[in-house]
């Protein structure tokens, strides 16, 4: 939309000087990215709009910390992921997920997973996503974040390292442990649903 040579540094300087048009331009440019990240990491009990606004307020307040050595979008992604992560910490880990808590579509996904080894049909993608999100609620914020980044957003280790500030080894260890926990929760559900 604003691809014609957008100068981030100049835009930030204009915003610092109180230029509302520049602020509006920045908001229009960054909103899709921030909204996408917020939706991917959204804590259940937080409003999407509230979190996007919090992220933007942090960005406006922390302009001075942006060095300009990396693209603005990278810096903004990191601020967004950290804001979501901090919000997740306020949410308590929920107890075991039971078959009775699931919707009919989510139950269908589980039945398909148990019945064969083929990839799930595309029509079940949204139900699968919802099911994974419900399973993720049983994990702590770090595990939840790493599973979302690695498996749902399909980010590379380097991208996860950059977004979280964790070392590559820590990302690998956390991803492995989180996956193991997720597997345990899924196994519990599958066993519970067996006739």
């Amino acid at each position, binding site marked *: 939309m604003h691809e014609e040579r957008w100068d981030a540094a100049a835009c930030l300087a204009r915003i610092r000087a109180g230029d509302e048009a520049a602020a509006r331009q920045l908001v229009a440019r960054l909103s899709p990215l921030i909204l996408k990240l917020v939706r991917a990491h959204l804590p259940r009990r937080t409003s999407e709009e509230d979190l996007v606004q919090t992220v933007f307020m942090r960005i406006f307040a922390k302009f001075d910390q942006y060095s300009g050595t990396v693209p603005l979008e990278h810096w903004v992604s990191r601020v967004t992921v950290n804001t979501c992560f901090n919000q997740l910490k306020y949410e308590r880990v929920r107890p075991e997920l039971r078959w009775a808590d699931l919707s009919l579509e989510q139950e269908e996904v589980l039945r398909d997973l*148990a019945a064969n080894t083929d*990839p799930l049909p595309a029509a079940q993608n949204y139900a*699968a996503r919802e099911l*994974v999100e419900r399973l993720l609620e049983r994990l702590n914020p770090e595990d939840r974040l790493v*599973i979302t980044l690695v*498996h749902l957003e399909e980010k590379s280790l380097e991208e996860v390292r950059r977004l979280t500030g964790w070392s590559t080894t820590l990302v690998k260890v956390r991803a492995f442990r989180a996956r193991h926990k997720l597997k345990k929760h899924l196994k519990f559900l599958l066993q519970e649903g067996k006739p």
Partner: protein
Amino acid sequence: MKNMDHTLDRLLRAAAAAGRDQAVEVPFAIEARVMGGWRVAGAGGEPLSLLPIFRRGLAFACLLMLAALILGATRIHDLTSERWTYSNAVASLALTQ
């Protein structure tokens, strides 16, 4: 367990595909709220923007306090050395007379 790995992979792949399909359309309300927040912050209503000023003020107050302490200590030192010289002069005068 290997079978469970495969099952989890299938579930995660389907979930990731659902995420890829999602179109991101920013509701107007979000932009309006963010711009409203920016205006308030610009008018000095945002507490975060006051923090750097407060920090600088605190640092300046600390520097002033340190300078006052150094100045006070120097003055005390000068006074005590003056007294020492005065008492020596009196004693010396008494001895010579």
